[in-house]
């Protein structure tokens, strides 16, 4: 119930934002009858309608089942916990994208791998450092040396 309602709210928000952006698409002398904004606007309206229908269906199902079914116990981690953990992992990835051009591919990987492993619960120690350096070097050898990919950054061993 809560998940479907959240879903319909998220969809409605996407529909509104996308509609507003589609409305501001510039006109062109070369445009056809439908125009560059024609289908995007239609998609936004359709998504809005789907969001409304989903909300209505969820509310109806809740109303029909309220008396008959006891609330179910949630199993597994809650949405808030999953989002917080995922935000951390995403931040580590974003950090890699932000620094790789500055410090170079090998060093950035040498930071990404232990950061992710530590975040996933490994303890900081010699093993982690050795594995990180070995893995970063293996990736460098594979992509830069073997596959000849010009990886970003000025500092590459």
């Amino acid at each position, binding site marked *: 119930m809560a*998940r479907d309602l959240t879903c319909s709210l998220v969809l409605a928000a996407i529909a509104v934002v996308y509609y507003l952006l589609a409305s501001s698409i510039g006109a062109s002398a070369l445009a056809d009858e439908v125009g560059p904004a024609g289908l995007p606007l239609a998609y936004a309206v359709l998504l809005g309608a789907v969001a409304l229908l*989903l909300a209505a269906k969820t509310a109806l199902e809740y109303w029909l089942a309220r008396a008959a079914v006891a609330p179910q116990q949630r199993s597994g981690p809650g949405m808030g916990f999953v989002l917080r953990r995922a935000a951390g992992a995403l931040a580590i990835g974003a950090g890699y*994208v932000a620094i790789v051009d500055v410090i170079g591919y090998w060093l950035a990987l040498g930071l990404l791998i232990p950061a992710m492993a530590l975040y996933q619960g490994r303890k900081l120690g010699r093993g982690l450092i050795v594995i990180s350096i070995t893995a970063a070097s293996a990736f460098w050898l594979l992509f830069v040396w073997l596959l000849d990919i010009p990886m970003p950054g000025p500092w590459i061993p």
Partner: protein
Amino acid sequence: MDTLTQIFELLLTTPLVPAAAAGVAWGILGGALPGISPSITMALVLPFTYGMDPGSAIVMLSATYVGAEYGGSIPAILINTPGTNAAAATVLDGYAMQQQGRGGEALGISLYSGVIGSFFGLLMLVLLTEPLARVALAFTPMAYFALGILGLSVIASLSGESLLKGLAAGLIGLMVATVGSDPISGVPRFTFGEADLLDGIPPILIMVGLFAVSELLQQSSTGEWQKADRTRTRLKFPSGRLRRRLLKPQLFGSVIGTFEGVMPGAGGTIASFMSYNEARRWSRHPEEFGKGSPEGIAAPEAANNTVAATALVPVLSFGIPGSNSAAILLGGLLVHGLIPGPRLFEENGDVILSLYTGLFFATISMAILGMLILPACLWLVNRPKAYLMAFIYALIFSGVYSIDYSLFDLALVLAAGAMGLLMRLVGLPFLPTVLGVVLGYLVESNYRRSLVLSGGDHMIFVEDRIALGLLAVAALFIFGSLATRAWLLVRRRGSAAK
């Protein structure tokens, strides 16, 4: 004779056999990791294909798919956790055999049936693909628009529990496909002044983000995988008598796998459960099913390996991916500048021949590597998940950067990953979104071109016979899916009332 000469030439001039073997090995390892689906395994191998000739690249991707379908059965049998969705049916009897100390026999049946299914699927792929692609030679813009609608109509059967959520996911994909220059007037749309977005968002970035990054983000909130017992298991091929007993379930699996693979949207999971059900129904020992029946492994494994080949039929013929893995393969074709359809067969016949030849060697490789690689799979499954996740993250970044040497692409993949995680949390399926992204441009550009041709008259879609036929099939598909959905709902309510 000409074809045989061409095949020998291909084998001598391109690394087809190594690509097939490497793809299968990678696929088995990836499929063996719980949570790492065939599509994720394929997305991770993509960067290694950029530097290859298109034929070897496509062979490596499709061989990965073949290998992953077998790899998925390893944790299903050994630790009661399917490595892939399609291996879920294998759990039922595979794990029961493992508990009886017959895990090695179960793995042998899985590998043997997978090889049979793969050969059958390859035969069907060769027989069906080109005749279907020839149909597309007569296509007009109206027919291409109708083909796009037919592809999108698959959403009705891909939506899982909620049709509305499937529709919403498909619309999100169509919205993503509108980013970039307008196909008719060239006006920039949703680019926010960013030059990198003028050419649109490459579908492959969305696929890697949705499948691989979102899985990684979600895995960051779950614990360790269950560990496998490395001491007891040694793969054992079935005896002659058992092989005769397995023929019938393998035939069920292969035929159902062909049908489900060719039908966009059906996929390996449905095929394996359907074939399991049919094998039980027609078995002389139905009472053994669920308690360690060899037939209960043979049917689903033959089915999901057949699907790995036949799912390529709609991709190669029309460019319509029927499953996540087929969508990644389509992404691989597009990255190498190969457009599916009849022209692919005319202009890049060598690529198609490479694919068929490579899949043949991939199947042979699977039979050999399936035995050799088992210890490596068990070792990998027993590694700390934290390191595997960290290496996968590094592999995603290195691989995506290798496409266009663009840091902007890395940011896009992360954004797609975040979108994928949100979609997982609110229960939106991925494949409708991928279909929207892949087919959005085809639908919009041909719809508008058709209207330019007709001066705005929509009757042009009815007057074009191919377009009308395709739209009729799409309508049938949608109504069929809706009817099936309604029937299942009524049956479920009936059972609940009892």
